[in-house]
């Protein structure tokens, strides 16, 4: 296939899930009206949710989920050796995500007991993002990832052109939708610090931004915390927002 006389690149792509809900892969699988167009851009050789066959010959590896077990570390390292490009796919892979809340606890044995009870399983004490184990070439943020952003990224790969993330906060897109600021409605919101690109979906539906896409570039975290306090939110409420996905630096 060509576009404006340029032959498109059709890379072989494989999707791998680690510790996660597989919701990010589902965003691709349930995008029914565009799925066929999408899989014409890349040759999908490994994708548990849509494909029975498995093939270990791939150019791009999409890694979903965080790394919580020893066998996952080994598996990830093997994938890294094979893949030309390794993509952290979604918030868990990019930052550790919800799973990483585990790292906040001092007594890890208590956590294991609380979660697994009398059915203990082998799990590491600390949850890691993908880039804590192997080198990551590219990140796709979001819990879950934004379908249209994934499409745009894969399209950039096909065209051999650079994909440029939005670097500014969610507020900018939220105001484009002419929403009323959630602070005006008395709610706490991570929109002023979180990377745009989600279409401000949560605040547009009256829900606070929870920062799933991680920080915008050079976010003004310090002064935003002051503003949150000034708006009457407690230290606890603020910390909950910042820590949920382990995406914001302490």
């Amino acid at each position: 296939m060509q576009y404006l006389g340029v032959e498109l690149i059709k890379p072989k792509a494989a999707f791998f899930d680690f510790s996660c809900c597989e919701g990010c892969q589902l965003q691709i699988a349930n995008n029914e009206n565009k799925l066929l167009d999408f899989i014409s851009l890349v040759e999908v050789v490994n994708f548990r949710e849509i494909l029975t066959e498995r093939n270990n010959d791939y150019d791009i590896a999409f890694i979903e989920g965080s790394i919580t077990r020893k066998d996952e570390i080994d598996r990830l390292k093997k994938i890294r050796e094979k893949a030309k490009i390794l993509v952290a796919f979604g918030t868990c892979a990019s930052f550790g995500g919800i799973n990483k809340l585990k790292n906040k606890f001092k007594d890890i044995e208590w956590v294991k007991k609380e979660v697994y009870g009398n059915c203990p399983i082998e799990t590491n004490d600390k949850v890691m993002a993908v880039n804590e184990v192997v080198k990551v070439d590219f990140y796709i943020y979001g819990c879950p990832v934004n379908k249209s952003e994934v499409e745009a990224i894969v399209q950039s790969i096909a065209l051999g052109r650079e994909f440029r993330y939005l670097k500014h906060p969610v507020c900018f897109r939220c105001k484009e939708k002419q929403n009323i600021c959630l602070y005006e409605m008395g709610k706490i919101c991570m929109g002023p610090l979180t990377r745009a690109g989600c279409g401000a979906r949560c605040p547009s539906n009256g829900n606070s931004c929870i920062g799933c896409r991680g920080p915008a570039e050079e976010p003004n975290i310090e002064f935003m915390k002051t503003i949150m306090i000034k708006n009457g939110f407690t230290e606890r409420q603020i910390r909950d927002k910042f820590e949920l996905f382990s995406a914001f630096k302490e």
Partner: protein
Amino acid sequence: MIFKTIDKKDFNKFLEILIENNSFFAPQKIAKDKNNKPIYDLRLVNDFKEIDFNYDILKYPPRRFFLPYREAISSFEIKNSSWQQNINYETKVPRILLGLHPCDINSLNKLDKVLMLGDYPSPYYTIRRKNTFIIGMDCDPKPFCFCRSVGTHTVQHGCDMFLIDIGDRYFIEIFSNVAFDFLKKVTTKDITKKDDDEYKRIRRLKAEKFTAKIDVTDLTKILDMEFQSDVWKEWGDKCLGCGSCARVCPTCYCYGIEEKIDLKFQQAEKLKILHACTLIDFAEVAGGFNFRPERHIRLKYRYYHKHRGFVEAYEESLCVGCGRCGEACLAGITVPEVISSIRE
């Protein structure tokens, strides 16, 4: 200028006629804030009863009706070995906007100078401006309004008619022959000495209500002198770089262009997306170099465009003193405070 008065019940009749035949936008209650205070904005109305005349200000500026946040300026389609470009300037139906305050009408006059009357007029803007009938309405100054400081508290042109509430009737300033012809459909009255007196009394009262202000005396020169001032750094430490100010500004017109290709690679769109000078990626160019990587410098240039650059080019400020940016800014950066900190 032609002045008339119209009884409110006749005015309602007038609105019914307009609503029936046009795409009609008017103030409505759209939400309530945390203190239960209603928030208003322009919305499509089908019945004049939906209009809320108690509105204080419109939450978002009417700029979007002329200069949308995002629009496809052109689309392309590949057909066999050839391709076709489609450009659509047309507006679907004539539009009527009711309830614009003087600041908003003057904001359109400023945009006209750049987008319609300048060296490179925008057909997209011009066609919308020409096809929109504007009914302005007088307002009560709010604590954040400083339009009087920048001379945008009165309307000289830019709308079709302007209404001032004088009790049981409206005092109408008629600006266009379209408005004059429209008004023939209902009963209007010539103004009397009593109406004149009432008009002057209301004008006097309004002038007394302004509390916020900025001092624009020699402001361009003072801004020149204070280009390196540390004050900018202080404001920059507060700025969130979120671009909310530019989103609620009635006069911001800076934009970026993006190309959107469909997944089949058969169609593409050129999208014009309004940008904001306080965003980190505003001045980033191909190759990744950023001309304005620092927050306080971006904020500074925002003020220089509004209060210095535009003044030098057009002999008037690009700021209309509506105060929306200060109200929208979570960090509490307001124009009167920034300007006075620079003057000190």
